[in-house]
């Protein structure tokens, strides 16, 4: 799956300007970078939530994309109904709720869930059906450690079973190292470093990437 070169400008400020990027099917690609480096904007462009500068498509036509926003919206329905929205069927929904330990919340109004519970519901919702490209914007940011590990396992299984490409935006470097085969480092809206995770996340070439990793205890 190839994403076309794209740019996004808000009120005259270009916040994102990327070259074409190749995303391998069946692999997880971590996207890391500082706050405001354009990660979520990239996700929104790919998901078709906002158009790139000059219009046009960033993804090939008919690419099946599923996207979990950084702030997922709990619809005013039960947790179960929220998960069923994506049309993956009862059985799949039950299995996902079980796996994320939110089975007991199935009948509760999703609008009353806690932050982490909402994130689990949103993850189950987006994983209900197979797709070609899965974009997750900090899916475990508000989950506790146990939940995050469970979520990681689910995402990896989903990736393997459906053979889809996964774009995982995360500030959890350990998580990126655990899960990702490839990695992108965004710096001030540009693609600063790209390649296998072992290199980008462990032994980066550019000083900005190294400086970024230093805050996590170094490369």
């Amino acid at each position, binding site marked *: 799956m190839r994403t076309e070169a794209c740019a996004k400008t808000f009120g005259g400020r270009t916040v994102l300007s990327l070259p074409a990027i190749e995303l391998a099917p069946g692999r997880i690609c971590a996207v890391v970078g500082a706050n405001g480096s354009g990660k979520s904007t990239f996700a929104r462009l790919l*998901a078709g939530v906002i158009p790139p500068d000059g219009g046009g498509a960033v993804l090939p036509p008919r690419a099946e994309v599923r996207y979990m926003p950084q702030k997922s*919206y709990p*619809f*005013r*329905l039960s947790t179960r109904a929220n998960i069923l929205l994506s049309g993956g069927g009862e059985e799949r929904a039950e299995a996902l709720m079980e796996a994320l330990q939110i089975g007991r919340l199935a009948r509760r109004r999703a609008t009353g869930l806690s932050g982490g519970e909402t994130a689990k519901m949103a993850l189950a919702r987006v994983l209900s059906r197979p797709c070609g490209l899965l974009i997750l914007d900090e899916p475990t940011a508000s989950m506790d450690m146990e939940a995050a590990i469970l979520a990681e396992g689910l995402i990896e299984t989903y990736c393997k079973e459906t053979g889809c490409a996964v774009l995982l935006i995360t500030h959890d470097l350990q998580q990126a190292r655990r899960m990702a085969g490839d990695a992108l480092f965004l710096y001030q809206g540009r693609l600063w470093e790209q390649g296998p995770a072992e290199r980008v996340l462990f032994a980066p070439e550019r000083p900005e990437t190294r400086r970024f990793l230093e805050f996590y205890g170094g490369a």
Partner: protein
Amino acid sequence: MWTAFRKALALILSGDRELGNILLVTARMSLSSSLIALLIGVPIGLWLGSCRFRGRQALVVVNRTLMGMPPVVCGLLLYMLFSGVGPFGRLRLLFTVEIMILAQVLLITPLVAGSLETYVSGIAQPVRETAKGLGLGAGKTFLLLANECVYPIFSTYLLAFARAIAEVGAVSMVGGAIAWKTNVMTTAIMQYTNRGDFSLGIALGLILMAVSLLVNILVSLLQRRLSR
């Protein structure tokens, strides 16, 4: 003063026939107008709040202006259109309950649309983003958005009804406050007070306040559910 008050209570309790007719006309008018305004205003509000298109902001401004239209101006407009020499004079609608309903629909619909537009534009972006991320189509997304608005629609309706029942400027101009026909609570209060007969006015005033209290209790209960 006290005697007028006692007479008013006696009137309410005795089931005075003129009082009953006024209540009936009032109920018919304000229920119809608020319901019609809801049926027109809710789709407009949902549409204005959720769709992005050229001229949307202009329409919002127009709607806000209509929200501020003084009732007497609305009354004047309809009076001119429907009086004997006006373009719709042949319909003979002036001084009927129907034209009072029409006047109120014109006044209240912008309020309904405006209040819903404000709410919807606050949630449209995350709703659309999440729905799109799940591969849901435009129709389903719209239904989800409407489902988010159930409580706001309820409370908007209650406020619309409260406004309809308390409005006087437009309905007195186009309705004429004809006894047993188009006289509603507000116009009757004015009429009887002008004649120096306070008791019916007080009785009506008490009922109006009670209705308003009830509506506001319901609204605050709804808001509590909303902010939970």
